């Protein structure tokens, strides 16, 4: 399972680093066809009516980015075709594309295999093929390519590999040029989706277990609040600098003056148990809006985050808090890309005209486009009297 939020190694967030310039999602149910869109270096703001496809774009980008890193477990849910362009610090652009397909057979066991395929397909376990290609855009020079369970690195002879696996998941394989850069970007794609809460609140306690001599905090049961608590506890345990940074941001946003971790020893099992309290209140009892902002903060501040996808950051958040949150996000967009989908005029006004991507649905297909030059000119004219949001949400042109 791909995590929304991952605790990982400490890395410096200082360098501006590689970034996503363009993405193409193909064969992703609901979009109605291939969708391609560009991303801003710092901010991308997806706006459009309900049902236009904004959430699908966020899901597709997240699933598509992670699919090459989890080829053995996730591709069926991901876009079956995904392509992206990655800008690098030296000014070059890396292009990458994968395609997921079903296993084909042309030998004498066709019929028998066909039955196996049918059974697997019914159980959602159909064997897959995986094709991918990475190349440098300007020179068209291939870095590596996987086709028919064969790996081609540059001009070297083909290497036979297991079917359905991408290079970034192959162990003990020399990494060709650009693989590390691509992996850094794809692995750095994080998502904070809209909450699916049933409204029930309960105290959250996180248990621990020893892992290679170190204490690891383990998610007690599924659910976003439990996951958030576990991520924070592991950050407290292993990445104290980043945990302190999170606490400072919480104070900055006036969410709480005091964040405390209380640990206990279960007398029966002798396991450690921990809880997080915000001004004395257990994490599980915090308001929906507060939890949402905490989720965004913890993901934003994660050192390895390169591209943060946030669905409707305004949801359940007071406008004053949203303004303060956007200020924090804005500062961190110096070295990571922020992609938000929104219905909020406040979020739209936070951006610049060039950050906007209009998501539209026509003939059952989703399209994405930046503001055209004439739109930008119109925005400039109208900004004398209106805001960007007035033009995006209020104006109808037919």
């Amino acid at each position, binding site marked *: 399972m791909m995590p929304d939020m991952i605790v990982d190694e400490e890395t*410096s*967030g*200082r360098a501006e680093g590689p970034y996503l310039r363009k993405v193409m999602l193909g064969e992703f149910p609901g979009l109605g066809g291939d969708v391609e869109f560009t991303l801003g270096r710092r901010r991308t703001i997806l706006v459009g009516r309900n049902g236009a496809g904004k959430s699908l774009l966020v899901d597709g980008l997240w699933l598509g980015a992670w699919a090459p890193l989890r080829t053995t477990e996730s591709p069926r849910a991901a876009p079956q075709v995904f392509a992206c362009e990655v800008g690098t610090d030296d000014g070059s652009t890396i292009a990458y594309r994968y395609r997921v397909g079903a296993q084909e057979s042309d030998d004498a066991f066709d019929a028998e295999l066909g039955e196996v395929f049918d059974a697997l397909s019914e159980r959602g376990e159909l064997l897959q093929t995986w094709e991918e290609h990475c190349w440098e855009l300007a020179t068209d020079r291939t870095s590596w390519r996987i086709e028919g369970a064969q790996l081609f690195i540059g001009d070297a002879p083909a290497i036979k590999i297991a079917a359905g696996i991408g290079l970034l998941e192959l162990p003990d394989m020399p990494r060709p040029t650009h693989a590390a850069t691509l992996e850094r970007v794809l692995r750095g794609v994080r998502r904070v989706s809209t909450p699916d809460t049933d409204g029930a609140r309960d105290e959250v306690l996180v248990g621990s277990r020893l892992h290679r001599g170190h204490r690891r905090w383990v998610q007690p049961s599924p659910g976003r609040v439990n996951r958030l608590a576990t991520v924070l506890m592991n950050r407290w345990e292993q990445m104290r600098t980043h945990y302190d*940074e999170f606490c400072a941001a919480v104070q*900055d*946003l006036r969410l709480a003056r005091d964040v405390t971790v209380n640990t206990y020893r279960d007398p029966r099992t002798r396991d450690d148990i921990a809880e997080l309290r915000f001004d004395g209140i257990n994490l599980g009892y915090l308001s929906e809006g507060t939890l949402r902002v905490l989720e965004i903060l913890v993901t934003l501040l994660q050192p390895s985050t390169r591209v943060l996808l946030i669905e409707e950051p305004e949801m359940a958040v007071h*406008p*004053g808090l949203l*303004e*303060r949150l956007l*200020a*924090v996000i*804005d*500062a*961190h967009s*110096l*070295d990571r890309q922020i992609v938000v989908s929104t219905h909020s*005029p*406040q979020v739209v*006004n936070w951006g*610049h*005209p*060039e950050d906007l991507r209009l998501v539209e649905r026509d003939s059952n297909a989703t399209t994405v486009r930046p503001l055209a030059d004439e739109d*930008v*000119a119109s*925005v*400039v004219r109208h*900004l*004398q*009297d*209106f*805001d*960007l*949001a*007035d033009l995006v949400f209020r104006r109808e042109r037919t």
Partner: protein
Amino acid sequence: MVGGTRRPRIGLIAEDRTDCETLVVLIRRVAEVQIGIDQYPADGCGALRRKAAKWLALMASDGCEAAILVHDLDRDPNNHELNDEGALRRRLADIAVPNGLRRLICVPVEELEAWFWSDPALIERVGRGRGKASTSPHSIRQPKEQLQRLSAEANGKPRYNTNHNAELARSLDLERCASRCPAFRELRDFVRGLVGG
């Protein structure tokens, strides 16, 4: 000069809540006396212009003696040149002001954060010894982003964000800022005039 022994009350209109909070700190420091401030943060400059007339009327009815209207001088997104300050001031001056309400139109160049660039000690604090204050902060492009970058270079990540502006304003060298930033000088002189300084 406003009011005898009564605590002076002014209205403040700015483009967002962060600017309002920062300006409140600066106005109170300049005034050096207890002063009441009614804050009207707009959500952007368009909203500010649309709502200003009604807010000014509200201030007058709520007993404010003066109003301060702060509007950034933005850049044209097409050519990145600063907009015409005279034209902006004329537009803002056209907004009706109730009788008896004194008004200041304050136009920081590009962003309020430019004022912080006037103070060497403050820049040293943000940049942990890096960075250099400017004798003409209004000539700095994207002063807010420059502060973020300075902070990121010094700390490995951008610890500064605009939520810190009010805190920075508490230690801003007011005299140096007034000498280097014409918009702040106007604000200082207006507030001092109100409180009889």
